[in-house]
């Protein structure tokens, strides 16, 4: 049985190590915060200028001057700090964030990612996505393995405009986990969702992977 969105978030949360500074994208990655393993203490960065992002506020705590990168109202923690956008992205670009977990539309076998625009549709912009994939030490992409038409989203080359080239270290889909170590060019299947057979994954994957 393939993983649900929540399962995928839970699996992604296993990539967080104690002491990590972490940036979570919008969508499934946001759910990761609900699954941080016991005994693992991480600090969440919000690229609009905050380290130590806390949970949503109680209704009487809402502060319009305190939002996350998804423009949601949030709270601060005792460890929190605020800084400006240039400092925030200096932190990201300079490789100080340990891990970024982000959604994807397509991933290529060479680790390229496309997640910001679909030609012909109204484009909202890349926000901080290009900076994150170019700068963060380790990037984990979370996405459904296939699109609604059943076509693979893990491809030899992305067909959509890229967000970044050769920057994804791990891909978590509803079917399993695909990763490559430092300096490795190809992804390897490292885990299958429960009940998912390797043949099903092979059939649904256009990318050239290491299958074993």
């Amino acid at each position, binding site marked *: 049985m393939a993983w649900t969105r929540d399962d995928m978030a839970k699996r992604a949360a296993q990539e967080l190590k104690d002491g990590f500074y972490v940036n979570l994208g919008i969508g499934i990655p946001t759910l990761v915060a609900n699954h941080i393993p016991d005994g693992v*203490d991480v600090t969440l960065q*919000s*690229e*609009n*200028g*905050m380290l130590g992002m*806390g*949970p*949503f*506020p*109680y*209704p*009487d705590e*809402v*502060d*319009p*001057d*305190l*939002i*996350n*990168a*998804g*423009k*949601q*109202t*949030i*709270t*601060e*923690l*005792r*460890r929190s700090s*605020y*800084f*400006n*956008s*240039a400092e*925030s*992205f*200096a932190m*990201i*670009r300079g490789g100080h964030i340990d891990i970024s977990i982000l959604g994807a539309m397509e991933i290529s076998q060479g680790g*390229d990612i496309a997640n910001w625009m679909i030609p012909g549709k*109204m*484009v*909202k*912009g*890349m*926000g*901080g*996505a*290009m*900076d994150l994939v*170019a*700068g963060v030490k380790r990037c984990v992409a979370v996405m459904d393995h296939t699109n609604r038409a059943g076509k693979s989203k893990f491809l030899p080359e992305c067909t959509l*405009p*890229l*967000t*970044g*080239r*050769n920057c994804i270290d791990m891909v978590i889909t509803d079917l399993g986990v695909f990763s490559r170590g430092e300096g490795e060019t190809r992804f390897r299947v490292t885990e299958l969702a429960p009940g998912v057979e390797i043949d099903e994954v092979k059939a649904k994957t256009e990318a050239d992977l290491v299958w074993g």
Partner: protein
Amino acid sequence: MSSKVFKTAAEALQGLTFDSMTVMSGGFGLCGIPENLIAALRDSGAQNITAISNNAGVDGFGLGLLLETRQIKKMISSYVGENKEFERQFLAGELDLEFNPQGTLAERIRAGGAGIPGFYTKTGVGTVIAEGKPTMEFDGEEYIMETGLKADVSLVKAWRGDTQGNLQFKKTARNFNPMMATAGKVTVVEVDELVEVGSFDPNYIHTPGIYVQRIIEAKCEKRIENMTTRDPGLGRGERGSA
């Protein structure tokens, strides 16, 4: 010293606005935007404005006000489209749009204020963002050159300011405001609270007054774009977490 303090947003923009001007406007979404100065810029009637701002406001608020009146010719932003009027004008070809990655935009503004005309970044390498930009290799990796950005006028929103223009920002309302304060030929600031010189501990001033030419105190509406809250029935124990 001649005073930096003005009474109203309209007075603070007097003599600074003109057609085809470039304006920077602080804020992230609707958080930390110079609401009153944006409204005064609309009322100034300046046309064909190039607006540099991370976002484009919403319909009827923030920079949305200037889109409604078609005073903006071009936007330089990282994320837009919370705004139907923006989308309509863009799809109709009435509005120019230059997307910058958010960090590149922030750094370009910082560079503009710091006298740095160009810098290299890995952001956008291999994407449409790199097209037409000079590249250079450092340690075997390719980087693209981005240029500094400046504005004729920067509109900035701060939390507290003193009469010398020293500023403090509140929480995530800081965002693009401090860099924009450095990159305007003239920087005009609205603050929630105007205080006397000497009210701040000099160790904790976010923007020194040298960057601020004009300042007003003004009441902000501070709209919330995505109100998200927790169930009040849940305990508050977690707030004790570090």
